Each structure stands twice: as structure tokens, then as C-alpha cells.
């Protein structure tokens, strides 16, 4: 009996000295070191800020900014708009260029990605050249190229490039017609909503009919026609309640219409083309990840190529494509911060740049900016995790 008791005591002593305790000690040491470092840094910062007479805290957001960013989608007034409003403006500019960039990059990326897999030798090689060249030139150089290299060769206002008589491209930007919504315009968005609902209903009906009788119906084409056609019909039927304000050259500038800043255009082009090259690779490897046997089995069953792609290849390819695709979307959003090089007023440029310079409150400005990007990144990660769980292939 005493031997067993001895063994037990020895075991308890070794346990105390080994795994568990050691782990606790290490973690405690790390935590204390980190705490000490934080205290040190905070103390230094407080001292340095006091020395320079810089305030702390977030009151500066209520102060008037005193400068006018060149591009604003939110109402902004030089005299009264606050730093907080500058933050909002920067955030909106970032989100807008990122969102539109994501759409363009996805479209172009999918086209080039599929071109990479084409049976046509020339198309395949052209797509490969595009991807290899664009991916190996720094994005900053590409932005500078589109802005200084291309847009600067555009003519001055008086000699604008003219497209279809409505679109004018010159050094000051892209001038295009602006819609003026008159009374009764509501019928067009209403028709759009009706069109979408009708398309969904038709699709559901067609599917049920196919289940029941086996007959097929071109639900996708009809649905598309509804979504596009109904608003057009509504527009004609209501006597075109949308008029267009056309840009007209008066003196040294255009009156009427609306204009898009050249910085915006350049940044958008660069971001889209750059990210599309990466998306193309993702699409290509996603489609190639689906084993060739899947295509063969579908063909052997008599499925036509379009059906094979839609029912067999695409669902499997998307599983592989979506996670890295969302990564690229995040990259594009982060890369929009490079607009600062051409003075596009995005969040980093106006807030972590100008406001920080003017108020001296570096810590707050940089921290807020980083926090915004972190939130966007966490949202995208969360979506990706949800998507992965949702469509994971069931295995034993």
C-alpha cells in the first residue's frame, strides 16, 4: 500500500514541475512582458504628446477640418464640415472605388480565366501573357501609368475626345449625361422590382413544371428579358419621365451632365486590371481542379456542354474559387489606399494623411484607419467561413 502512495506523491511532484506549471509560468511571463512594454510605450507617448502640445482623445473629430477634398459623394462644406465628416467622406470614397473595382475585376478576371482554358491557342497565350505581365509589375507603377501616362495624354477640355456625342473624355475627367428625374419617374424602379419578382416567379414555375412533366423552359433567358424589358417598357409607356442633362461645352468647361474625376478613373482602371489578373488565375485553377473524369461522365450520360458546365463543373469549381476570390476582394479594398499617390481622396489619404498632419493626433488617426480596414477584413473572413461550412462536400 505504501508503495502505491509513494508513486502517487512522486507523480504529483513531477506534474507540478512539468507540463502544466511550465505552461502557466511561460504565459504569465509573456503577459507581464507585454504589459510592461505597453506601459512603457503609453507613457512615452503621453510625454511626447504633452511636449508637443498635442491633444489626446477623439474630440478633434468635432473640429472643423478646414480643407476641401477634391471628390465628395457626401455633402461637404469647406466652412463647416468637421474632421468626422472628412472621415466619412474618405470612407465612402474608399468603399465606392473598391465596390466598383470588385465588380469590374470579377468580370474581367472570369473572362480572362476562362480564356486561359480556351481550346484556341492564340487566346490562351494572350490571356497567359496578360496575367504574367500584370502580376509582375507593381500596382503603384500601374496606377501612376494610368494617371500620368495615359490620362495626361488626354486633350484639354476644348478638344475633348467625343464618344457618341454624349461622352467627353479630357484632362479634367469623364463628362457624361446626368439623369434628371421628373415626376412619375417612380414607375421605372417599380417596373424593375416587378421585373425581378416576375423573373423569380417564372423561374420557380419553370422548375416545378420540369419536375412534374420533364419539359424544359428557357427560364433564365425569359427572366433576364423581364428584368431588362419591363423597365424599358415602363419608360416608353410613361412618356420617358427621365430626361438627360447633357454636358455642353461653354467657354472653358462643361455645363450640365456629371463628371467623374480622372483620379477615380485611373485608380479604378488600375485596381480592376491588376486584381483581374489574380482572379483569372484563381478561376483557372478552380476549373482545372475539377477532375476531367467529371466532364467525361457527364458527356457519357449525354449531357450537352452547357448543361455539363452548369450542373456538374461550375458547382464544384466555385467551391475552390470562392475562398481565394474573397481574399482578392479584400486585397483590392486594401490596395485602394494606394490612391494617395495620385491624390485620390480615399480614407488613408484624407484621414490618416491630411487630418493627421493638421491635428497632429497621429495615434488616433492611424488607429481609426486601421480599425476600419480590420472590420472590413473580419467581415469578409466571417463570410468566407460561413460559405465554406455551408457548401462543404459531405464525406465520411
Amino acid at each position, binding site marked *: 500500500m505504501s508503495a502505491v502512495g509513494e508513486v502517487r506523491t512522486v507523480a504529483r511532484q513531477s506534474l507540478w514541475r512539468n507540463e502544466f506549471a511550465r*505552461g502557466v509560468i*511561460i*504565459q504569465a511571463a*509573456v*503577459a507581464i512582458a*507585454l504589459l510592461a512594454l505597453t506601459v512603457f*510605450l503609453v507613457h*512615452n*507617448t503621453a*510625454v*511626447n*504628446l504633452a*511636449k508637443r502640445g498635442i491633444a489626446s482623445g477623439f474630440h478633434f473629430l468635432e473640429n472643423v477640418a478646414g480643407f476641401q477634398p477634391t471628390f465628395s459623394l457626401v455633402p461637404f462644406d469647406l466652412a463647416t464640415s468637421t474632421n468626422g465628416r472628412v472621415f466619412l467622406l474618405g470612407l465612402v470614397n474608399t468603399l465606392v472605388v473598391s465596390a466598383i473595382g470588385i465588380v469590374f475585376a470579377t468580370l474581367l478576371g472570369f473572362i480572362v480565366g476562362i480564356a486561359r482554358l*480556351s*481550346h*484556341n*491557342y*492564340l*487566346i490562351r497565350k*494572350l490571356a497567359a501573357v496578360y496575367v*504574367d*505581365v500584370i*502580376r*509582375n*509589375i*507593381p*500596382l*503603384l*507603377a500601374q496606377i*501612376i*501609368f494610368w494617371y*500620368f*501616362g495615359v490620362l*495626361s495624354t488626354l486633350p484639354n477640355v476644348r478638344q475633348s475626345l467625343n464618344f457618341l456625342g454624349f461622352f467627353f473624355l479630357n484632362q479634367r475627367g469623364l463628362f457624361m449625361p446626368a439623369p434628371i428625374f421628373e415626376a412619375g419617374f417612380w414607375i421605372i424602379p417599380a417596373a424593375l422590382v416587378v421585373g425581378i419578382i416576375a423573373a423569380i416567379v417564372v423561374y420557380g414555375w419553370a422548375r416545378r413544371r420540369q419536375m412534374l412533366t420533364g419539359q424544359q423552359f428557357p427560364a433564365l433567358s425569359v427572366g433576364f428579358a423581364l428584368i431588362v424589358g419591363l423597365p424599358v417598357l415602363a419608360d416608353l409607356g410613361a412618356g420617358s419621365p427621365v430626361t438627360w442633362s447633357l454636358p455642353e461645352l461653354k467657354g472653358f468647361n462643361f455645363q450640365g451632365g456629371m463628371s467623374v474625376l480622372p483620379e477615380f478613373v485611373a485608380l479604378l482602371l488600375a485596381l480592376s486590371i491588376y486584381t483581374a489578373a489574380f482572379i483569372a488565375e484563381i478561376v483557372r485553377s478552380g476549373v482545372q481542379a475539377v477532375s476531367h473524369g467529371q466532364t467525361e461522365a457527364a458527356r457519357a450520360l449525354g449531357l450537352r456542354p452547357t448543361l455539363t458546365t452548369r450542373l456538374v463543373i461550375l458547382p464544384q469549381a466555385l467551391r475552390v474559387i470562392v475562398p481565394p476570390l474573397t481574399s482578392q476582394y*479584400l486585397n483590392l479594398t*486594401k*490596395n485602394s*489606399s*494606394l490612391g*494617395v*499617390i495620385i491624390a485620390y481622396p480615399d480614407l*488613408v489619404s484624407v484621414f*490618416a*494623411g491630411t487630418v*493627421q498632419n493638421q491635428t497632429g493626433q*497621429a*495615434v488616433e488617426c*492611424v488607429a481609426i*484607419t*486601421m480599425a476600419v*480596414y*480590420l472590420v*472590413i*477584413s*473580419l467581415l469578409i*473572413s466571417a463570410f468566407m467561413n460561413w460559405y465554406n461550412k455551408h457548401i462543404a462536400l459531405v464525406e465520411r
Partner: protein
Amino acid sequence: MAEITASTPHVALPDQPPPASEVGVVGWLRRNLFSSIPNTVLTLFALYLLYVIVPPLLNWAIFSANWQSGTSVKDCVWDGACWTMIRARFGILMYGFYPAEARWRVDVTFVLQFAAIAGLLIEGVPFKKYWAIFLFFIYPFVAFWLLYGGLGLPVIETASWGGLMLNLVLATTGIVLSLPLGILLALGRRSKLPIIRLLSVAFIEFVRGVPLITVLFMASVVFPLFMPEGVNFNKLLRVVIGIILFSAAYIAENVRGGLQAIPKGQYEGAMALGLNYWKMNGLVVLPQALRIAIPSIVNSFIGLFMDTTLVIIVGQIELLGMAQSSARDPNWLGTINTALAFVSMVFFIFCFSMSRYSQYLERKLYTGHKR
């Protein structure tokens, strides 16, 4: 039927060549370019694109370009690219404001570096351990002494460093010094100790969630506030620290991928032999994991090399910045496209060769490694 039981030798049918329309140039053209109407349309479209892009580009870059030497944009009499400007500013583009008589120091630094990396990565070169020790532990001091000065060499302040040399210094310092940190973070992420794991994950996700620009801003504007009174950090050093922290998070993810590919049996075998945590990782796990992770580490390096262009924004004039300011110089107004073309080619050559190399490595590694 009664058959001869002795078997007869079989007279084989001779190989015949395939029909003419199937092989050779005609067959290849038919299959790849003109096999159907849509395909033919695509081919014509592709040929049109080539026609619109290639001849004007070649014309601008080579045939109508200015290759002669000169001192200002007026010397560029031809229509095409003004390579004259590149010739005139070549020293500055490569070395920044590094004094001309000291440029040999930069050259020696990078020759040593490429030699060390080649020794480490190329098959068949012996003494890999010594190359690694040299590259990671000795070379950094040698390089710093050569580039900065002291101990017999005249000091050249970092404010004079610029051009392509600066991109290379930033990228290689970034990778070399972020590797150890990245490995620690990757191990920390897999640690059983919750605080270590939490800190590692937090650092990695935080850094990967923010743009490099914000990290550079933080390094150049916020770091000085963190310093006790009187301590003045060299501006370039702040930027380097920012780059190291940024790169470490991405390296950590690359190493994590390598660690995940190591089967559990390796850990168990090492533990069964009595190796403790650090010996197990140092002798068994990491050597294998790092080998697997090398292609993705090379990819991170390519990305970092391209990202070094961002330091323009915090006032360091590297190659792209130098080229841009050259094109703004009153002597060379209007040569921005030439400048950009030159910079793009330099980056393209570096990055494309590195990525081809990394693909080659990946192929080699995966044929030898059972998946």
C-alpha cells in the same frame, strides 16, 4: 474447331503515319485555331488585338526610340521612348544619392547576397548549412558595414540611399529578418498555451487585415511618439521595422501551410525519441516544413519586393520614386512613360524570374512528396 496447339508468332501490323490533315502545321492550325466558326472568330479577334498592340509597342520601345546619350529631353529627337533619359540618370536610378566613388560597396553587397542565396537554394551546391549560417547570421553585419560604413569605411547616411538599391535592401532585410519572427508566430499559432496562441493569432490577423500603407504611416509617424525622450530613430530604420512586422505575418501563414503538411507521425516519432519541444521543431519538423513552404515564401518575397515601392509615400525615394521624379525634372519633362516602362521592365524581370523559379521548386517538391 480443331486448332493447331502450337502457337504461331504474330506478324505485327506496321506503324503508319497519320493522315496529312491531322498532323504537321496544317493539322495543328486546324485543331487549335480554326476548328469551328466561333473558334475562327476568336482567332481573328486575337490576331486583331496583336496587330493593334504589338507593332506600335515595338515601334515606340525599339525602332523609333532614342538610344543615344544626351543631357536633356531635347536630345530625344525621335518619336519613341527616350532611353537617353535612362542612360543619363542610370546611376541615380540604381543607387539613389549614394556617392559615385562608393558605389562599389553596394555592388559587393549584392553580389555577396546573390551568391549566398544561390548557394542555399541551388541543388548540388554543398555545405548548405554554412551558406545558411552565413546568410542569416554573418551577412547582415557585413552588408550593414558595407552599406553604412564605420570601421574604416566612410559613413554614408541612409538619407542618401535610394533607387533600386533601396528596394533590394528593404526587401531582403524584410524577408531575412521577418523569417525568424514569422516562424515563431507560426509555431505560436499552433501552441497549446492559450495566451501564446491568442497573441500570435491576434498579431497575424491584425497585420494581414490592414494595408501596408497604414503600417508604414504608423512606422513613420507613430513610432517616434513611442520612443522615450531624446531617442531619435533613423527614418529608414523605422520603415524597415514596419516592413519586417508586416512581412512576418505573411511568412507566418506560409510556414503554417508547411507545418500543416507534416504528418502527425513525425511529431509522434520525435516525441517518442524523447526530443523536447524546441529540439523536435528545430531538428525534425521545421526543416521539413520550411522545405515545403519555400515556394510560397518566394511568392511572399516577390510580393514584398513589389510592395517596397510604397515607401515613396513615407518619403524614401526608391526606384519608382526616382524614376517619377526624373520625369518631373525640368530637363526631362514628358518622359514619364519612358520612366515607367523602364521601372516596369526591371520589376518584371526580377519578379517573373523569381516566380518561374518558385514554380520550378514547387514541381520538384511535389513529385518527391507524397500527398
